[in-house]
Every structure is written in C-alpha cells, then in structure tokens.
C-alpha cells in the first residue's frame, strides 16, 4: 500500500517535471519582462511614492513596473549607493557618510525635495495647554530632563499640575532625527524614558489613552485623528503657530516643518522609463502629497526640480547636514554641491 503511494508520488513528480521541461523548452515567442523601476527608502515617503507609482503604472498600462519598498531612509541609501535601486525616498538629506559611500561606488544622485511634512506635537484633548515654545519643548525632551521633568507644571508654572506620559518615534526613525535636532539642538539627543514606537498609530493610541499624554509624529497622523487629539501650536519666537498646510508652506510653522526627498540615480535617468517616471512623479507630487497627508510645494518649485531632473544636475544642497526650519524659498535658493564639504 505504501510502496504504491510512493510510486504514485514518484510518477506525479516525473510527469510534472516533464511538463515543466516541455513548457520551458517551448519558449518560441519572446515574452519580455517589462522594465522595473525600483524605489526603496523612508517609510515616510512611502505613501507618496506608492500613490505616484500606482498612477504611473495605470498610465503606462503595465509597460513599466514600479516597486516600492520601505527599508527606512538609511536602509534605502545603503541600497541606493550599492546601485541596487533607482530611486531612494528619504525623510532627511543624504548624510556625509552616505555621500562618501555613493561616491566610492561611483553613484551620482539627483536630489529632489518632493514635499513638506509638518511634525506635530499632540496632547490629549482634555489637556488645557494650547501652545508651547520651542524652549518648553526642549525642557521636556532634552536628555537631562530624563527622570526629572515628569509634570507639566515643571515646564511652565502656568501649566496644570498633570503628570506627563511621553510617546515618540523610536531612534531608527528619520522623524526622531529631525525632531531631536530641531528641538534639542543635537540630532539623536533625547531623553529615553518615553514610550518609543516605530508605528505612529501606537503613539496616537498612547496619547488618546492618557490625560497627560504628549507625543509627536507627522502631520498626516494628526489629520486622521483630529477628533481624538489636540495639536499644540509652536512658538519659535514670533507667537504660537498651529500646524497646517498654510503655515508649513509659508514657513511660519517653524522649526518643525521639514522637506522630504527623493534621490534619483543619475545614470538611471538615462533610461527612458526612469526619466518618464521621474517626470510623472514631479508633475503629480503636489496632488499626491495632499492626498496622503503631506504638503505639496508651489508649482514654481516643482518646475525648478523638473528642470534639475531633466538636466541631470547632480549633488546635494545640504552638505550632509539636516536643514532645520528651512522654508520653500530657502530650499529653492540653495546651491547644489556634489562632494561632501569638510565642515
């Protein structure tokens, strides 16, 4: 009985192997695999790239494939500088170390700021606090506050006597990098006695669930949870400004507005499919950004960047450093530098 079972199994295997061989042997018509544009990088940029890739594939009816991954800004640059992907999404400018590794691999990049994001500080709606100065935020989040600043009234005597429960992104996130540098002055310097999560929805849940909750994340997460959270207005010296599309765009919501980027492999731009896709990306970035919760740049900015892409002007405008509180005008005025600066 068993030998029969195995014999039958063996026969089935032989037949399917033969069928496979026949099928693969009969490759008469040359069926071509469509060219695949590979994008990876920041999970912040992911929704935007996804929306654009979707539209582009619809437009080209499958002649060109686009894949989007989310290995994070750092992971994306690693793949980008090894030449494994055509486009890297980044929630911060390329770092000096990444510039060096791209340079050593002979990979040149075209830097395109593709939209703006407004980092939003949120509290529980029952919290009477409406706004905070950057200094107050610093007194909460700086490393020396660890274990000491645990009540809102320690930050400002006019604040209520309310124990604080802090939530924030984990240290692997580009949002964490930006916020710590913008608020504490040093990238990645933060108190660590808060509940970190790579998933912003967890931060939302945390702040919704605790009266003394305070956390920060991208504007998109606040807009989806408007009814359950309150966004603090941020005062950087010119009075409190609430995060909104308008205040991010006109540069008054500072220093928590940040540009997000795509980096294009300059050699890949010679491929017509990549060129076509990049054009489509820049032309549709504004509309797609609004749809996924980011702030599109003015049309003039996109026109400049389209030109930059078409001329394949390589280099970064940031010299490996974060640009804190940069406005759209300042962004456009920046000069591109190709090699890492030594300062």
């Amino acid at each position: 009985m068993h030998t029969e079972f195995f014999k039958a199994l063996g026969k089935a295997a032989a037949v399917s192997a033969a069928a496979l061989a026949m099928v693969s042997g009969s490759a008469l018509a040359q069926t071509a695999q469509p060219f695949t544009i590979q994008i990876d990088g920041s999970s912040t940029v992911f929704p935007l790239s996804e929306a654009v890739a979707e539209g582009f594939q619809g437009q080209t009816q499958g002649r060109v494939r686009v894949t989007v991954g989310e290995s994070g800004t750092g992971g994306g640059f690693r793949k980008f500088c090894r030449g494994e992907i055509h486009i890297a999404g980044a929630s911060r400018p390329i770092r000096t170390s990444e510039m060096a590794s791209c340079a050593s691999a002979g990979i040149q990049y075209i830097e395109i700021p593709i939209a703006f994001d407004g980092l939003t500080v949120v509290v529980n709606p029952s919290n009477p606090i409406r706004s905070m100065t950057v200094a107050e935020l610093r007194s909460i989040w700086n490393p020396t506050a660890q274990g000491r600043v645990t009540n809102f009234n320690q930050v400002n005597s006019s604040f209520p006597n309310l124990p604080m429960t802090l939530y924030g992104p984990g240290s692997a996130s580009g949002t964490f990098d930006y916020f710590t540098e913008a608020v504490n002055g040093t990238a990645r310097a933060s108190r660590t006695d808060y509940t970190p999560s790579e998933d912003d929805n967890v931060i939302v849940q945390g702040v919704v669930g605790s009266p003394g909750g305070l956390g920060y994340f991208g504007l998109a997460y606040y807009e989806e949870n408007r009814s359950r959270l309150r966004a603090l207005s941020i005062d950087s010296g010119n009075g409190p400004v609430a995060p909104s599309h308008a205040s991010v765009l006109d540069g008054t919501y500072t220093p928590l507005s940040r540009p997000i980027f795509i980096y294009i492999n300059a050699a890949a731009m010679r491929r017509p499919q990549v060129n076509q896709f990049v054009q489509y990306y820049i032309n549709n970035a504004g509309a797609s950004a609004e749809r996924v919760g980011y702030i599109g740049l003015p049309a003039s900015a996109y026109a400049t960047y389209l030109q930059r892409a078409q001329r394949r002007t390589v280099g970064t405008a940031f010299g490996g450093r974060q640009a804190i509180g940069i406005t759209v005008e300042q962004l456009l005025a920046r000069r591109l530098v190709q090699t890492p600066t030594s300062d």
Partner: protein
Amino acid sequence: MSAVDVAERGDITAHPPGLATRRFKDASFIVWGIVATIIGLGTLVALVSELVHDGGHRLSMTFFMSFPSSDPEIAGILSAWVGSILVIATTAAFAIPIGVLAGIYLEEYAPKNWMTSAIEIAVNNLAGVPSIIFGLLAVGLFVQVFDLGQSILTAGITLALLILPVVIVATREAVRSVPLEIRQAALAVGATKWQATQHHVLPYAMPGVVTGVIIGISRAIGETAPLILIGGLTFVAFLPITRPGDAAFEVIGAVDEYGAPVTPDATERVLIDHDGVVVMPDFSEMPVQAGQTYDLPHGATVQSVATWSDAVQSWAPQNWLGSEFTVMPIQMFNWTSRPEAEFRELAAAAGLVLLAITLLMNGTAIWLRYRLRKQIRW
C-alpha cells in the same frame, strides 16, 4: 505485598493522614488548569473576534483580486497572496528534501560519536535563532555574495534555512518512534539498510514527518522580519507570473540578454492587435492602432494579451524565481502603520486570511496524520 502488611496498616479504607490537603491540591490543580486554558483560548477568541469585527466586512472577491493601492477603497492582497504562495513553494522545495534526508541520516545512519552530537546540538540551537538573523545571513550571502538579488529565490532559501531545524527535528523524532524490531525484521530477511528505511521505517514515520513539515511551513508563512531585510517590497502591483488576459509584451526578432537585436537592421512586418504603443529599440514610443500592419525593427516591444500558453509558460519556476515580490505579512505590516483607519481594516482582513491559511494548513496536517496513521499496521 503480604497479608501481614495489610493487617499492620489496619483499615485501608480509613482516611490516611493528609488526605484533605491532597484532595485540595488535586481540586486546585483542576481549577488552575482550567484558568490557564481559558487564558489561552480567550486570548485567541478575543484576537479573532477583534479581527473579524475590524476587517471581516472587507473580505470580498475584490479584496483577493486587487493589487495594493494608496486608495484603501480599492486596495487588495492579490500580489501578496500570490507572492506568499510562490515563496512558500520555493521554501518547501528546498526545506523538505534537505530536512528529511538530514533527519533520516542523523537518526539511521550517522555513527554515534562527538561529531554527531555536535551536529545535533547545532541543529537544536538553530531552531532558537531569531528569524532576523537569518535575514542578515541572507542579505550578506545570497543577495550580495551569490548575487541572487532581492528575489523570490532568495526569500525561499532564507525561509527554508529558517524552518530546516523544525523539519530535521520532526523527522528524527518520527523515525525514532518506529520500533527497532521493524528494522531488525527487515534486516533479518536480507534487506539493505536503505530498503529497510525506505519500505518499513519511512512509511511508519510519515505521519510525524508530514506534521513537522507543515508546522515548519506555517511558521514560514507568517515570517516578516527576514523578508523585509532582504528586500521584500511593500508596493508591488504586478504578479511574478502571468495570467491569461494580462498585458504581455513581445519582442520582435531575436535579441541578446540585454534586449539588443541580434541583427540590428532587420525589420519584420507585424499585425498589431491592440491599440497602444510600440517601444522601439532606442526606447522611443510609437503609437499604434489595432488591425494595422507595421514594419517594426528587431528589438521593438509590442504589447499583446497573454494567452493560456503564455500563462502556463510563465508558471515555470525559472520565469518567476528571480522576480521581485511581496508577501501577506509584509502587506499587513505596512497597512497597520498607515495613518488612515481604513488601512487598518484592510490589515485586519489580511490578518484573517493569514489566520485562515495557517488554520487550513494545520488542519491538513492533522488530517494527513490521521489518514497515514490509519494505514499503519504494525
């Protein structure tokens, strides 16, 4: 025991000392046992009902047959479940033969010495290695050294390594549980060691082996971490295989591996059957109309519609092993971290599908084990 002993103990039906305590312990064990069971079961029930509540209404044919999208209303898991199936098939193709052979060798053939013990310890430890470590290994070895790319093949081999210890250990246990007398009887009538193993040990060990394999594979289905590391993608809106009716692309004339025509100046007269564009060898696009005939240079790409034979051809492993892919858990992971609440409904629905697949596989394991056991007559 002699009658004298009984007499010395007196009336054995009388309550011995400490009985109340022991009875209490007995009863409280039952209570704690029930509590433990309820905690386990209750968590599962809560989890499943939460998933059903959140995502149940999103389960539909469209959900299964649509690609992921930035619009939650039309997003689906097509590329994810097809990707999962292809990756798992690859995993099984590597893990089953290697795992079962290694298990049989270690149990039946390997001499009992320090080498074998070392291998045994290594295999057992391998089962406890976190899956992300296998991802790191895969990136370093398969992606970068062997240059297999971020492909289904890489993913399949990685997951195969991950579940290998499970398969090996299950095979060994199953083989070990076959009574020695069966082997001795076979050897006594002149069978070789392999004949005894093939005809007598293996059939009886089959239920255990099958169970081990399926448990291993259900673990592989849910794995996310190593696949994200080797580049399992989140947005893949195409399938590694072709369906009949899909857009297909045909290259005119013979081309080399880079897509350049072998005879660059040759042209061919082609009847176009779909409105669209033809991509020329220099990548410029030429609009074409259905029903018209065009002189096309070799190397040009024409859009057509895949026939059944195109589709069947695309199912041959060499045509999809190198493809980019996404799998169910990666798709789910992406949806849970999106700001829009609708995506979390999709994540819950995808979770239900994943749960159903795992349940189905475990059910199959139980059924197979039952079937195979019934056939066993010692």
